[in-house]
């Protein structure tokens, strides 16, 4: 019997018991739609993270003082006074791929403006920071090199800080704020940027020259800084540039070979990879749980096919008497199982897509349509049909026509 005729026979047989066919497919529909929804949610989360990180600058390299792995005593990242302004200049000289650099030293403090106050991050940095972070200035201007040289008490506010100190949308340029009893002049407001790669709010920050933080706010000695923010000239170059920076810093710090770094170089790709791996693990876990329902759906198909073979013993006997060969009967039941699982799978994809869209539009959960998961679900559905349909189909094909015709 031709494949086309087999499919027709199988479809007619399924059509004879529509309720059962529908219920059997339901198991498959739920399984596939659950997998699609879970993977779509996971992918959505992943894409959002990647977008956020890209928002922070794709070719970003961060160097931080200290190293988790150094010595018997943990210094804590950023705590050890191992980076200096001279390191920044050395990198600028020796690593041409490091396009923009900004020394960083930050603190946290209460900031007061007239009758309001706000506790926020005060990030001492350098003039190139807006270029590195690809960050526009909303009002006023960023501080310039002479501000840095003179450790001027000027501040550029993140939008959240501005909203909390001066009211939403206000223009505070020219106003004064107090940090540790010192008066700072507001010279600019950054454009709103949203949450950063680690979920912290990037707009809840005040930028001042790093020299100002060193001399006026920390009141500590000399040239130590807690970190350097660098942008590589191209994202493709980023790992090479990071390696070069490490080499320069090791030379600067006179570290002999074998001695661990007293600093940490982190590229944006490291962060991206780490976060992606986290969400991938979560997605895999959720999809795995949803996959269990796929297997349950498959067993449902096998169960129904077994019942169907018993119930239709006489039909099988008749078909054999009329000339059906074992393989004709095998194929008929196998195709029935495959149709059940495939149609269930396709409907499940539609449903899963609908649920994902619904979650996005109603709950604002980010989802991404997972093309590979769809292909996988269809493949799995077909495989389920073949796997769970084969045993009942073979039982049917092995029936003896005489016995089957006598079957009541």
């Amino acid at each position, binding site marked *: 019997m031709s494949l086309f005729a087999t499919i027709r026979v199988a479809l007619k047989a399924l059509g*004879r018991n529509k309720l059962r066919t529908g219920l059997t497919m339901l198991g498959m529909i739920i399984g596939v739609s659950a997998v699609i929804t879970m993977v779509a949610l996971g992918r959505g989360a992943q894409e959002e993270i990647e977008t956020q990180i890209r928002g922070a600058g794709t070719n970003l390299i961060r160097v931080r003082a200290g190293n988790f792995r150094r010595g018997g005593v943990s210094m804590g990242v950023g705590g050890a006074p191992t980076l200096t302004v001279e390191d920044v200049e050395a990198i600028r000289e020796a690593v041409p791929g490091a396009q923009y650099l900004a020394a960083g030293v930050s603190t946290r403090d209460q900031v007061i403006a007239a009758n309001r106050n706000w506790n926020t991050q005060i990030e001492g940095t350098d003039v190139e920071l807006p270029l590195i972070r690809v960050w526009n200035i909303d009002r006023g201007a960023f501080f310039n090199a002479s501000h840095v040289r003179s450790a001027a008490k000027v501040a550029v506010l993140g939008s959240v800080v501005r909203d909390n100190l001066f009211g939403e949308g206000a223009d505070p340029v020219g106003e004064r704020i107090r940090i540790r009893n010192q008066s700072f002049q507001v010279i600019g407001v950054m454009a709103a940027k949203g949450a950063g790669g680690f979920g912290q709010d990037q707009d809840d920050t005040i930028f001042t020259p790093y020299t100002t933080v060193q001399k006026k706010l920390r009141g500590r000695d000399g040239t130590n800084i807690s970190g350097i923010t660098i942008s590589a000239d191209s994202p493709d170059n980023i790992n090479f540039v990071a390696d070069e920076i490490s080499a320069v810093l090791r030379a600067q710090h006179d570290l002999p070979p074998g001695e661990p770094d007293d600093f940490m170089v982190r590229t944006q790709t490291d962060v991206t990879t780490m976060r992606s791996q986290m969400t991938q693990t979560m997605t895999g876990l959720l999809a795995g749980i949803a996959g269990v329902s796929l297997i349950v759906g498959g067993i449902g198909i096998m169960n129904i096919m077994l019942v169907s073979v018993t119930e239709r013993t006489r039909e099988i006997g*008749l*078909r054999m*008497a*009329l000339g*059906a*060969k074992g393989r*004709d009967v095998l194929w008929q039941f196998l195709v029935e199982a495959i149709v059940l699982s495939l149609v269930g799978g396709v409907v499940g994809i539609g449903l899963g897509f609908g649920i994902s869209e619904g979650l996005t539009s109603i709950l604002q959960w980010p989802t991404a349509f997972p093309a590979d998961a769809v292909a996988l679900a269809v493949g799995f559905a077909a495989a389920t049909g073949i796997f769970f349909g084969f045993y009942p189909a073979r039982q049917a094909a092995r029936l003896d026509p*005489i016995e089957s015709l006598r079957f009541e």
Partner: protein
Amino acid sequence: MPVIAVRNLAKTYSTGAVDVHAVRGVSLDIPAGEFVSIVGPSGSGKSTFMHILGCLDRPTRGSYHLEGRDVSRLTRDQLAEVRNSKIGFVFQGFNLLARTSALDNVELPLLYRGGGMRAADRRRRALAVLDAVGLADRVEHLPNQLSGGQQQRVAIARALVNEPAILLADEPTGNLDSATSREVLDLFRRLNAESGITVILITHDHAIARHGDRVVEFHDGLIVRDERRASERAAGSEMQAAAQTTG
């Protein structure tokens, strides 16, 4: 050459310790175009013999030539092909597919034909045989919308659709009342007379068996009687004679 030639045919079932000798050495020739009744009580071996004649089963010993071809040692798949092309089955319980139109039921054997057949040709053939059994106006009816006699006629149409060499009817009137039985038997008679198809009627009922040209009686796995009769034709001419005398 007879359409069926059976020599020393035997079938033994091994059910654990005891061997059951259902058919114990039977020889029989059936010429093409004959209308043969095989009669016998249950347990006489007629059903086993019928299964072998219908290529549903293989004999333990002996040979069976169908249209000159030895079919007693064929494989399962080869037997299926022979059943499809050479044998038309009519069963006591009709065995129509439920919730399937008369037309689709009749098309069923065509689906399993070697070489395949186009859907339009299948439909044409099925319609033609349904017309031949007088059901041209019932082709889209489902089995439960048809009377017992009509259902059996659908089954007969299905048996005829592949133009088989023999029509093998197993208690075809067992589920029918006497008037409908008569109709079905007349249909066999007509098909036999018009298209010359060999009809083999298996029954336990001697009254039904008398409709055949020849009655073969089974008992304990052996043929105990084999008579050619002039029954139907003779009865017909008697009636004609009677009509003439009265007229």
